[in-house]
């Protein structure tokens, strides 16, 4: 019984992870990413401390320092001190 429950939980969490790229803003001011996904280019504002999920299947993103990066949809972007790092 417990094993089944644990297995189900593990499965669920595994499904939950790896769903889209996510970006977390660790700064104290909002940061903006420019996301080019599909045929549109949108500004994605991330409030301080917020984590957003975006880009489910590959996109281009302009980071706050002006760098352009391609994402395939499983990355985590961490913004701290105005610098974004892709993990």
């Amino acid at each position: 019984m417990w094993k089944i429950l644990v297995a189900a939980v593990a499965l669920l969490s595994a499904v939950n992870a790896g769903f889209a790229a996510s970006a977390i803003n660790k700064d104290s001011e909002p940061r903006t990413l420019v996301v080019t996904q599909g045929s549109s280019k949108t500004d994605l504002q991330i409030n301080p401390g917020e984590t957003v999920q975006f880009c489910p299947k590959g996109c281009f993103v302009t980071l706050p320092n002006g760098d352009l990066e391609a994402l395939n949809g499983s990355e985590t972007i961490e913004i701290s001190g105005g610098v974004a790092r892709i993990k």
Partner: protein
Amino acid sequence: MQDGRHIMVLRLLRLLAVLALAAFASPPNSGAAQEVGQSIAGMIAEQQKVLQALSSKTDALEKKIPADADEDSGLLDDRLQLEALSSQALQSALAFRPKVAEINRRLEELGPVPAEGKPPEPAIVATERKTLEAQKAQINAVLSVAETLSLRMNSLIDKTTAMRSELFRKVLTHRFELTTAFSEKIGVDARTEFSRFYDAVSSWLMFAVKFKLQAMLMATLLALAAAAILFFGGRRLFGHMLYPDKSVEDPPYLARLSVTFWTTLVPTASLAAFFAAAYYFFDRSNVLRGDIGVFLQGFMIVVATIFCVNRLANAALSPRLPNWRLIPVEPHAGRWLIRLATAMAVIIGIHIFLGVVNEQMGSPLSLTIARSFVAAIAVGIILLLMGLVKPFRTRTGIRRPWPTWLRSTIFALGGFIIVAALLGYVRLAMFASIQVVVTGTILLMAYIGFLSARALGAEGGFGASASGRWLAARTNVEDITLDQLGLAVSVALNILIVVLFLPLILLMWGFHPGDLQSWAYGMAQGVTIGSVTISITGVLSGILVFVIGYFVTRWFQGWLDGSVMARGRVDAGVRNSIRLAVGYAGVAIAALIGISAAGINLSSLALVAGALSLGIGFGLQNVVSNFVSGLILLAERPFKVGDWIVAGAVSGTVKKISVRATEIETFQRQTVILPNSILINDAVGNWTHRNKLGRVEIRVGVAYGSDVKRAYELLSDIVRGHPMVLKNPEPFIQFINFGPAALEFEIRYFLADILNGGAVQNDIRFAIIDAFAKEGIEIPSTVQAVVSARKPAPWPTDDDKVEAEFAARAEAREKAKEQAGKRRRKLRGPDPL
């Protein structure tokens, strides 16, 4: 000595390691930058080439798209190609990531540019910084090319999507002039078409028989062997599931489902295997020539589908075995439904097969229209007939039709198809009929799934299923747990069916997988209300976290109570208090973590809570006060579980202290739920607070005139002689009153456990009665009830006086009668005669 040598060796090793590390870790800086620079230049050139190739392919596709405007498959193909190109562009852009990361890392190592007024950085650093930034700019330029290209491809993809939906709309709303389509020419067309088809098939047959007979026979035999292996093997493996046991009165739903499944699967799979093997061997031995391969393939698929539909309908409705039906319909109606379903499959199959033939032979449009027209009308008629079937029986035995909503839907669909076809919207009619058939099949499957889920969720349903039996045999799960598990499985199955079949139906209705994906993604992303985003995954994970937290709390509670505190000989009341406090704290923490996992910001929640607290303070005053009182009870512990308390009129044993109220069981076994605030605000007596010591009084009356001293001695002996009466404090006998009926004594004694009071009182009273009876001391009983007997009136002594009184009474009665008679006469008025 040896130790010293050891240390020497270790030191040497450490030195070597440090040297090696230094050699690897610090390569000459300028050399590395150059190397990186070279590789980056090469990479940029390479990716630029790739992007250029992609760009020219996109150009070609952009030109091709308008040419494909009238052909759905062409547009779909373009779209798929564009999608592939777009992902290639992304891959090409992704290739730069390690390089960019390397450059960024190096730039970070170099540190920020020194501010003005500070000493400038060394020339070598400045040059390297410049080189790195130049490289980065180059990479960014290439990436932006890729981005622009990707944007262009995606807008082209959007364009194809829009064109496809437009085309779809146009096709559906296109109206054919039936009079021109069904002119005399059609007969000629059909005849030439048929003769061409006949020629093709017969010439192929002649060729095959003449030159390839052996190969054909061989291939057929091999295919037959393959099918036989599958068929008999399947029977052998699943034989017990293939044949329903007629003697079983009420087979479980899952057993019926598995019989249906296997009876459909095994023969269909055998037939499919036969066809596949035959086609394969024919193809291998070059028997197939020209269009024959395509015809044969189409024919085989159609026949296999018809067979499958027929088998499935037979198994699901099984008119011969009423107990084994999946869908409970009458046998007569079931037979009709099987025939109609098979007919529908045959018609659509022929339609598809003729479509293949038409396409291969490049037939005129009129034939295609005629084919679709006939098929649509036939499907419409079959639908109407299906609607007319009366599949159920009322309790009185009258045949009952489908439920009204279903019947009207079937009639509406059938009517729509026929009318559309008759009006000339042949493609619309055909599209609708195929949608009806496919969607109907999917819905039917979903319905069977729901029925199975219900069967699983029913009481004992899971336990009777194979997996339930397996689980019961392997683990020592109780029946109730198994039932609950079945319920959970059934709920999960229901959700699964919706999750599986809904997209399937949507896909059938022409939605794109991409749309569905983005919908699902949007749903998972959630809706934003103000600053709070609520998403399904968030809520689900929040609930999951809470459930996990709850179970962990329960487990911790149990462990703390059972293992730690029980071993530590902690007082039961304290144990209870700690357990409860841990439980509340755990659940509260789990709830908080769950809420934050659900994506709801706790600070915004705090704001809401602050605003609401005033209202809650007034509205839930009682509840809150009880809650706080409960916490105080847990902390202060004026009583604990098992204590005998008296609160107001309630006296009894404390059974449970919970956060709002306390359960008290009176000695009559009545459970009284007392709000905690009463227990805190009012006086509560606790017989067993610090100890269970308590005093008991027994009153005894002795008749006046008895030997009081002797009685006193007897009482004293009895009470001192009882083993459960405490010697200290000493029992005491008080001569308390010269009562109205007796001389009253009171025996006062202490018991170590006041809860034994009743038994001891009994013992002492019996002993007193016995002792007094032996000594002849009377215990008087006061008569409480006064019975008043009715006494007759005394015989009169003065006769004359009585007689006079009697005469006066009789006279008065006479007078009263006379007066009453007069009054009545007056009132009556004149006589009518």
